[in-house]
């Protein structure tokens, strides 16, 4: 009974400490202390990035193999904390609004608890821990989606999210139960030996995958995505689309390569089908969208499909390509959401549509430029980071022999470029007599947007990040 093992889980324990500090601060702080609340949270989280990276130099296996961490996982955790910090930075203005101000503390607490859940999900080497981590990552998120209590859309998004989530976890658990039934253990390293690819196991695999597919929002498990993204507060949408998705993808990769290694042929085929469907169908939806958040929802589904190209290879190269893709994706998506968040305060009804963006260039040239770069990055246009991440993802899938899949994905990039350009067109070209007035960003948002800009421009050209990731892979 070595309870000191708890203290070896540095990222989780420190994050928990942050969680507790914030929780208590929320309870006790009043008046002027509350004003520094946001800054405090941001600082703590940024500090936590350092802790995560510091913890990454050693490999730890704890609790009888239930918990495992290495440099790659630590890096991914740091990445997630970084992304969450961006989210929190961008949330400042929204949290100042009357409805949200009273719930400021809850927002941080819920956000951090989901982050803790993701950490455990990433480090889990046992399906029970994985499942609890996943639930910890989704249930408070449901509360966040429904955070704007007085907005019908937020509530609707929340209920759709939570119901689908419960449905998905039930299906996933059903799958896991059969895995347990046929193998007799739920420890990842032991499971691989017991797997033989029987029909039942294939069924269980698909059921399990459906649950994670829900989190990553892959077609056909994606239908909640657009509705929830649209209804949720923008910062939460951002969080959903990058952090939650990133953690789930990484976990999926680990489980597929660790647990389902004997069934590689099967899951590759499964992911093949899902990838093609995700990219294509999401693109078809995206070209028809007008609401920006909804549009980004479909864009994120399509991006998830591209990430699957790295997953399908199941190689070390694929892993580094995937992590790099997620990192770049965080940067670009956070930039877009940051801008959406900034702009929608100036829009009647609070729902930013593409028409609102018309002629934005005249009034907000800098935001427009950043938005353009971010969209180009998402579309895979050099010299922005998105090009590199996409290229590497294609390379890894090509390396694994999925030529036709790569080709389909490539053709789809053209479609995706089309809808990204639609927005660029709206901002630059479409004339508009009353564009959104000049928007002044607060300092926090500005910091986060600058970080995103740096990431978009430099992550690809400066190769050290990728090289670092590549050193950690497997």
């Amino acid at each position, binding site marked *: 009974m070595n309870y000191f093992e708890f203290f070896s889980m540095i990222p989780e324990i420190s994050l928990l400490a942050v969680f507790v500090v914030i929780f208590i601060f929320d309870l006790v702080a009043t008046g002027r202390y509350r004003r520094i609340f946001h800054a405090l949270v941001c600082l703590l989280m940024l500090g936590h990035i350092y802790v995560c990276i510091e913890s990454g130099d050693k490999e730890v296996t704890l609790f009888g193999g239930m918990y495992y961490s290495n440099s790659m996982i630590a890096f991914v955790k740091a990445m997630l904390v970084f992304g969450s910090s961006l989210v929190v930075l961008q949330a400042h203005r929204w949290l100042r609004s009357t409805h949200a101000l009273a719930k400021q503390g809850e927002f941080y607490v819920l956000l951090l608890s989901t982050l803790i859940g993701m950490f455990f999900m990433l480090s889990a080497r046992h399906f029970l821990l994985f499942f609890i981590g996943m639930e910890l990552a989704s249930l408070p998120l449901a509360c966040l989606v429904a955070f704007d209590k007085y907005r019908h859309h937020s509530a609707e998004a929340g209920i759709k999210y939570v119901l689908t989530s419960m449905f998905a976890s039930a299906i996933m658990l059903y799958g896991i139960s059969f895995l347990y039934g046929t193998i007799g253990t739920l420890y990842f390293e032991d499971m691989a030996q017991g797997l033989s690819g029987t029909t039942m196991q294939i069924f269980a695999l698909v059921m399990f995958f459906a649950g994670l597919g829900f989190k990553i929002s892959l077609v056909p498990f994606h239908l909640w995505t657009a509705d929830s993204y649209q209804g949720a507060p923008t910062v939460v949408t951002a969080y959903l689309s990058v952090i939650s998705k990133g953690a789930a993808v990484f976990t999926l990769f680990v489980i597929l390569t660790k647990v389902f290694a004997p069934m590689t042929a099967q899951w590759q085929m499964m992911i093949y089908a899902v990838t093609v469907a995700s990219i294509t169908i999401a693109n078809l939806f995206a070209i028809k969208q007008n609401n920006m958040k909804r549009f980004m929802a479909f864009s994120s589904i399509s991006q998830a499909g591209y990430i699957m190209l790295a997953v399908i290879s199941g190689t070390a190269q694929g892993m580094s390509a995937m992590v790099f893709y997620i990192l770049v994706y965080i940067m670009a998506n956070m930039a877009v959401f940051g801008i959406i968040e900034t702009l929608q305060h100036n829009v009647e009804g609070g729902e930013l549509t593409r028409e609102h963006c018309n002629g934005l260039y005249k009034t907000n040239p800098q935001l427009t430029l950043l938005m353009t770069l971010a969209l180009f990055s998402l579309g895979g246009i*050099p*010299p922005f980071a998105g090009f590199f991440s996409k*290229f590497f993802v294609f390379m890894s899938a090509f390396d694994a022999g999925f030529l036709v899949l790569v080709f389909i994905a490539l053709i789809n990039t*053209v479609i995706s*470029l089309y809808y990204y350009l639609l927005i660029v067109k709206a901002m630059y*070209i479409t004339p508009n007599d009353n564009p959104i007035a000049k928007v002044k960003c607060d300092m926090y948002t500005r910091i986060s947007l600058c970080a995103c800009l740096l990431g978009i421009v430099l992550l690809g050209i400066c190769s050290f990040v*990728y090289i670092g990731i590549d050193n950690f892979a497997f």
Partner: protein
Amino acid sequence: MNILNLFVAIPLAMLFALWISRNTKQIRTVMVTGSTLLLSLSVYLTIDFIAQRNAGVTAAQLYTDSWSWYPALNICYSIGVDGISVAMILLSSIIVFTGTFASWNIKPHTKDFFLWYVLLSLGVYGFFITTDMFAMFMFYETALIPMYLLIGVWGSGKKEYSAMKLTLMLMGGSAFLLMGILGIYYGSGATTMNIHEIAALSNIPTEMQYIFFPLTFIGFGVLGALFPFHTWSPDGHASAPTSVSMLHAGVLMKLGGYGCFRIAMYLLPQAANDLAWIFIILTTISVVYGALSAISQTDLKYINAYSSVSHCGLVLFALLMMTRTSCTGAILQMLSHGLMTALFFALIGMIYGRTHTRDIRQMQGLMKIMPFLSVGYVIAGLANLGLPGFSGFIAEMTIFVGSFMVDDTFHRTVTIIACTSIVITAVYILRVVGKILYGEPCNEEHKRLTDATWDERFTVICLIICVAGLGIAPMWVSDLINNGVGDIITILRP
């Protein structure tokens, strides 16, 4: 310090300087300084390159250098030039330089226009100096995407549609291309992305070549206006602002031909030999079809765009003939077409800027109103139809002589068919010249128009000098190219 890096560094510095510049004057200063620097640098490069060759340096590539970039994926930032690239860099510099003057009074958002413009040229330079497939592809796409905004924001007519079509078609092409590049990389054992090392390995299995050659060739061919993937060209050119048309037709379309030669044919020689006939047929169609289409157009830019289809088709056609002479001719044609088309588009832009119409039925007698521009147009037209003394002639003749060296009926026949384009070209050029320049001015409003301003004159004269210079003294540049072509041809025709 490798001089080639400056070709990337200067545009980067220009981007930065533009970013911080505050008014039009500063922007113009930055642009003129930068483009002049680039031009002088490329002139220096050309001279130095020739001097080194004359001094007996026989390495295939000069100024080579390589920095590891993504070591795990064997991606390097490798640079190096041979005669072909030097010629292309020179061409790009000339066009960028003159394009700056052609867009002297661009409005609105002058700064952003030049930002994207410089980004485009950055891509072009990068493509020509690098020898690593990844870096080439990166620069290639970097050069493509600014087109969208340049056409969409500063263009005219149905610019949004055209810009979108152009971008999507070219990006569709690069989707094919990316497949091809990955195929080449993995086909050659995934050990290097450097094209010369891959060529030296020459270990790509023939069956793989059969798959990836068409992909790569079509990928680049889309940009080279290969039939039937050329339809972005007329719309795109028609909508683009002057300097963008210049840069696009003058340089960007050359990336296609260059890429076809440098990557598709060089790295996949067996497939290139075996499958060339398919593409020869397509390019022959391009050549004649483009020219015939041009005859019945009424929009000046459409005429020129179809003419570009025809001429660029000739480039690919000549490359596929795979004789040393024809390939030299192809590169010459790239240079020549680049300069001539830039000149043409510059003039069309200037005329359009005054008359506000490009419909040849609505213009007449411009010779009396704007003699300078009209004379320039006649010269451009004559150059375009291959008048000796201008660059078009030497390029076409080299191509035809070179193509005729392939001794079989099929190649002979298509060469003769392609030759007919010189007659058709004359038809549409003279048709336009006769319709819009000659005669009495028909439109009262046109009579009040003025002739070219100093910046326009400068642009036109620079380009005419280049076109004539290449046409009168072709030998040095032909030698320059011939050396570079030789290495590739020895692989193609062992």
